[in-house]
């Protein structure tokens, strides 16, 4: 634990095989310095290639031995951005090495793995931050409005979280005799446009890939956990989701502590379905009023001749999420406090997602474990 508010934390990037926004976000804060990229030696070639590329881009060494890198480079923070099924194991290893941990979402594909992280973080008395979007300007504004009592006591919260992105060929496009789309190969291919949040051997639906973002909004604004869910899930847009039996569209009714209710609509709905990244909105109801928040605002719209069809017309402004997350993390380390999205809250969100996936398959309401 550091009491020096000026101390710069040396960070090991422990695998960076997908979009690199997490280590890049960590590096955006002057108190964090990326000093090494580390990975297990027995990973596939495509993993090593991506790690090496990131190391070269940042002029730092790449070491094919995680524990050795931690020792040799005197790091205090581990930044985990591997395939989702390896997230928790790497985070546990970092915590056991005495590192504070910043981890990419989702926390894990298995709730039991999350329990390992919670235990390791507590046992080693280190700080843990699950990457999130809670410091976007609109979310800060929503939190302020709720805290100021503008709508009274918050009683219901709804989040629409649609990503207007394609994910390979559309549903129904596979010809007779063609093999099903391999999930990992599809995700490796998606790296080119940054849509590889689901990279890994295990297929993941949108609830697992992106659900943590809107559920983290809900957790932050309500301050309570979800107790029961009812979900509907389907593969509606993309052949890869059909072939791998994972959803790309889901709706979830949320029943929370303190009798608060809510809902989540989430999907990877195709690039044609919104002019920008997607429709992301929050609707909050309290005892004294309601609040409608567009996550994208503030934004400015730009149009010009021969503008590429897929270029977003609206550009978000004042995005300080990366810096604020890392400032929150630094403050947590300095003062032995919890972060804005710590291991326990992240575990609860993962359990909510697992219950929703189960509910979508069973057609029954499910208690969150």
């Amino acid at each position, binding site marked *: 634990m550091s009491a020096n508010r000026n101390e710069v934390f040396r960070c090991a990037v422990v695998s960076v095989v997908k979009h690199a926004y997490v280590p890049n976000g960590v590096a955006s804060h002057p108190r964090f310095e990326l000093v090494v990229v580390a990975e297990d030696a027995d990973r596939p070639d495509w993993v090593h290639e991506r790690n090496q590329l990131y190391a070269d881009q940042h002029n730092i060494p790449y070491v094919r031995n995680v524990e050795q890198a931690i020792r040799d480079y005197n790091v205090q923070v581990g930044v985990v951005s591997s395939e989702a099924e390896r997230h928790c194991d790497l985070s546990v290893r970092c915590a056991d090495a005495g590192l504070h941990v910043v981890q990419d979402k989702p926390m894990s594909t298995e709730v039991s793995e999350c329990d390992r992280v919670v235990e390791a973080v507590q046992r080693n008395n280190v700080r843990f931050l699950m990457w999130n979007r809670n410091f976007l300007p609109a979310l800060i504004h929503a939190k302020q409005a709720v805290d100021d009592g503008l709508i009274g006591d918050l009683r219901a919260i709804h989040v629409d979280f649609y990503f207007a992105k394609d994910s390979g060929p559309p549903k129904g496009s596979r010809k007779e005799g063609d093999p099903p789309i391999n999930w990992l190969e599809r995700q490796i291919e998606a790296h080119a446009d940054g849509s590889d949040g689901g990279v890994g051997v295990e297929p993941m639906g949108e609830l697992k890939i992106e659900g943590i973002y809107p559920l983290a909004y809900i957790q932050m604004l309500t301050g309570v956990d979800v107790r029961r869910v009812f979900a509907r899930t389907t593969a509606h847009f993309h052949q890869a989701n059909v072939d791998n039996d994972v959803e790309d569209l889901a709706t979830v009714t949320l029943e929370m502590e303190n*009798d608060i209710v809510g*809902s989540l609509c989430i999907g990877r709905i195709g690039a044609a379905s919104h002019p920008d990244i997607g429709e992301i909105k929050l609707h909050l109801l309290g005892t004294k009023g309601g609040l409608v928040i567009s996550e994208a605002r503030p934004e400015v719209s730009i149009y010009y001749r021969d503008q590429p069809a897929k270029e977003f017309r609206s550009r978000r402004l004042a995005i300080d999420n990366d810096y604020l997350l890392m400032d929150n993390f630094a403050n947590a380390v300095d003062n032995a406090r919890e972060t804005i999205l710590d291991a326990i809250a992240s575990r609860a969100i993962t359990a909510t997602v697992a219950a929703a996936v189960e509910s979508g398959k069973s057609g029954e309401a499910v208690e969150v474990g």
Partner: protein
Amino acid sequence: MIQLALIKASDDLPDEARLRSASFVEGDAGAAVVAAGASSIQDGCDAASQGKHVFVKLPGDATSASVERLIESCQDTGVRLMVGGSTRFDASVQTVRQSLDAGQLGDPGLLRIHRWNSTATGDDSTWQDIDLAIWMFGELPATVYAVARSIAAANGSDFLQIHLGFSAGGMALIDLSNNLPAQDGDPQSYYSLSLIGSSGAAYADDHHNQQLLFASHGAQALKTGAGDLATTAELQEFVDAIAAERDPGVSGRDALAALQVREAALASAECGKVARLTTERRYEC
């Protein structure tokens, strides 16, 4: 020219001049327009028994049983029945539906509705939004799950969230609230509809359609509405259906289906379980 006899006064009738081939009359006529009220079901039944085509707005506490009675009355004399007050004829909903019918949105996957009001009208407009879901997906939902809460009401619930599942994987999530505060004594309302399809999406959202007013009380949002085009379109549909000797949209059967789903939602909220559509086209919780 279709003559429409007005049963009980109503404030929300369209300008007669905007109707094609129809006029309002006092007294006897071939068709009756019944305003919403405690006796509107009975008034509709009475009009049907006299051989009049019936356009009726349901009372807030209408049940599937009462609408079945109205349907039977109309069937007995072979007259047309249209249930009024539907949101199908809202300009925004019509635009979304036209895009869906044109194939621009592909197969509907998700319908999301937020409807917030100030008026504590009890069971109010729930059936209208359920009807929209049935209309957009073209079938009854196979599953119904709902939660009800009291957000600001001293008694009973003023919040209902209805979660519908359709047979091909489609889904609808509708949240209805009557707890918005009045503003200077005037009721407030908010409405948002999103329809996500396999190849496109439509967003009809009050949030987008607000104007800004800066006054002494601070910035306020003012909604630019669509006038009475919806009520005109609705009544015109009734007139056109009579002339063409076809069932109107929204028929008695349409309203009945929506009310049955609403009752299933209330039962689900009460028992905490999923209500499922049986082979007899009833819902069991």
